[in-house]
């Protein structure tokens, strides 16, 4: 019961968060020394006062700032994110289009990062200070420090151009068309439609960008797992377990790993939230139609409704991820109580 109440309370908090985020982003984006009219109207139309006035009236830019915000907030509370000044499409429609692409890639990347990050971290802790540990630490430092755009270009060049074993940029090969949108995740939608070849093609397109995005988070997870596990392994209860004659793998899996994973879960949560915010450079190189490039374009064009829409989406992502992380804490450590 405590958990349900806890979840409900956090969900209620979302409403205040959305209002807060919208206000902060609204204020910040209006302090930029530029003008959305200038950013979106052609030079010729800028010279025509009538056109400028009509444009301002159309987008409500002729009203005082507080009024603009109140109008926006009113619509927001009714679930309307407004219309993008740049794309002239409803912001919700734009987010609905770009976010699933980011979500699909982020899910793939985080799974790769967790599998390899945790495994590497465990091996590294067990083999502390021997060559395997050094190699893994080297890989994790490299993963966390190599610029993602460089890695993206290199893996494309090697696996797509030279070796020809991976597909090129995009979510699908040119001979496939997008599956009927149910979730917006191409692999899942293709499976739902029973189209295995499209699902496989979509999956194969996830591999390279997914690995590039996973590299950074994987590095962090490896390091956190290693240090956390080392700390646990030096504790008295582990020594006791070993003194009882338990095998090393049993000590680690049954007694140490659960406790060691608590800080790792936090890092995974943060890493996933980061991935869901979109990765402009990787999206650009892999021609991935994700939320990162949309947000970048919105910011460049001072497209306020889109900027606020993306910010709210990212804030909600973090709240949900944090909630999941908190629930996972309880699973990993029964002493955690939700109050």
């Amino acid at each position, binding site marked *: 019961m405590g958990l349900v109440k806890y979840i409900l309370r956090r969900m209620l908090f979302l409403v205040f968060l959305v209002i807060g985020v919208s206000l902060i982003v609204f204020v910040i984006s209006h302090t*930029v020394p530029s003008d959305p009219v200038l950013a979106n109207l*052609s030079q010729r139309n800028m010279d025509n006062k009538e056109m400028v006035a009509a444009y301002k009236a159309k987008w409500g830019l002729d009203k005082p700032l507080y009024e603009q915000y109140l109008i926006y907030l009113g619509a927001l509370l009714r679930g309307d994110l407004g219309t993008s000044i*740049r794309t*002239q499409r409803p912001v919700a429609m734009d987010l609905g289009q770009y976010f699933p692409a980011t979500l699909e890639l982020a899910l793939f990347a985080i799974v790769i990062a967790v599998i390899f990050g945790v495994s590497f971290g465990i091996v590294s802790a067990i083999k502390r200070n021997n060559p395997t540990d050094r190699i893994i630490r080297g890989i994790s430092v490299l993963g966390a420090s190599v610029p993602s755009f460089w890695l993206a270009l290199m893996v494309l060049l090697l696996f797509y151009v030279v070796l020809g074993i991976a*597909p090129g940029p995009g979510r699908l*090969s040119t001979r496939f068309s997008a599956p009927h949108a149910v979730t917006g995740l191409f692999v899942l939608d293709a499976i739902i439609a029973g189209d295995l070849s499209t699902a496989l093609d979509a999956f194969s397109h996830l591999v390279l960008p997914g690995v590039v995005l996973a590299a950074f988070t994987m590095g962090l997870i490896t390091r956190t797992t290693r240090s956390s596990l080392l700390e646990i392994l030096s504790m008295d209860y582990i020594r006791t377990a070993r003194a009882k004659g338990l095998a090393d793998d049993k000590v680690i899996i049954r007694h140490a790993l659960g406790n060691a994973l608590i800080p790792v879960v936090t890092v995974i949560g943060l890493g996933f939230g980061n991935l869901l915010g979109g990765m402009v450079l990787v999206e650009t190189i892999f021609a991935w139609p994700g939320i990162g490039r949309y947000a970048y374009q919105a910011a460049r064009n001072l497209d306020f409704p889109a900027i606020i829409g993306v910010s709210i989406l990212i804030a909600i992502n973090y709240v949900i991820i944090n909630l999941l992380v908190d629930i996972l804490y309880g699973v990993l450590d029964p002493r955690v109580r939700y109050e």
Partner: protein
Amino acid sequence: MRMKRLGFAALIAALALAASGANAAPAKQLIVALDPDYQTFDPALAYEAYAMMALHPVYDTLMQFDGPSCDEPKYGVAESHSISADGLTYTFRLRKGVKFSSGNPLTAKDAKWSFERAINLKGNGAFLAEGVESVAAPDDQMVVIKLKSKDASFLTKLTSNVFMILDSKTAQANGATNAADAQTSDKAKLWFDGHSAGSGAYVIESYTPQVELVLARNANYWGKAPYYDKIVLKSIKDPAAQLMMLQKKDIDVAFNLGPEQVKQVKGKKDIEVAKAQSMTLTFMLMNRDPQVGGPVANVDVQKAIRLALDYTGIQTIAGEGAITPVAPFQVGFFGTLPPKAPKEAQNIAKAKELMKKAGYEKGFKTTFEVSTQTVEGMDLPTLAQKIQGDLKQIGIETEIKTSDIMVALDPYRKGKQALSLWYWGPDYPDPNNQLAFLPGASVGLRANWTAAMNPKLAALGDKAAVEVDSKARAADLKAIQEAMDADSPFAVLLQHARQYAYLSELKNAYYNDFYKLNLAVVAK
């Protein structure tokens, strides 16, 4: 364990199979990779540089360009025209038998409705129709357009997307209107972004922003059937990715290659590199208002700056094929003078003399404003550094101030920059477009170059704008360019080149700056 390994191997094999299958594109499909800027495919609202590339194969206009040149518009769906003696009334006779993709016949009423809609929608390109007083359709084949004042560029303006002819019945059925309040009452924009109502060789099949635009053959096309069944314009922003996809033959055309990619692909088997003249200019603005420009506002200093620049080095930075026009008029437009010889345009000794004459023998310090923009593959801040070095030779110390274009645009448009680096892409391919650089005109005023500062040149510009006799117009334009070469607050640095690459088996993949690629004529 062995089973697990086998399973993993099978997965890898399946993935490789799926990946390799990607190369087998269906027959008669043209795939172009580009970094598009289009926001909409509503002809009345579209304004971006790549919009014409997508819309030209879909919609017809009264006038259009054939082949790579943009210097003289030819007939589109018009078969003849006449201009009244006062130059204010244009009468067009339409071709017979032109049909929209819906099967509806294209009539003069559709043209009238479409033009009125574009005017009333007040989109970014609506200024092209500002001079139109009225449009009439006395019969199904005749369109009569009355202008408010004479306009030498009107036939060229008719080639643009705001004058595209829409199937008015289909458009209205999907929420479009030509009413005076169309800006608020027209609800067809979203429909136009995924559908079309034109009479061109292709129809819009689907559009997925940031992914692709798919054009399909128009079964009811009235003209010669195009070669390809489908054209896919893929949004691939990164030039390196475009190049890789071309090398793997996953695409037919890589449209946005930078100088680096061009070097890599040159001489490669099966790949053709095309070089064409872009109509984009890069120029330096030198303010004429002493309160803003300080010493830069001095006419002799401005002349000295132009003489101090190393145009050969500047062209090298821009890449092969870049040229230096005499004035802000693009080579390739009607009446433009041949470009300067870059070496002869630099004269440091004379520049130093002019600095001395202006009273700045010892030089001065000034700010040099640049936006962090890439123009036709060339980085503006990099060019600014080159210019900084050039100006140092005559004692001018510049402090480069970079900012995002959205921040830099405001002081530029308000005429508050002393010295700055800018670029200019024409709104329509006609020299009238460039008259904006004259004293008292919109770009001239950004340098605070008022008509009173050079009334003779301003008057010459007004005359050229309405001169319909081509001989007299060419003479006016020549005089304007010569006058601007002698004295203006602009240093025209570059007219850029456009380089792209395509599979050698393609025919007619020529560049036309207005349409970029004329997609309907590309064949194998």
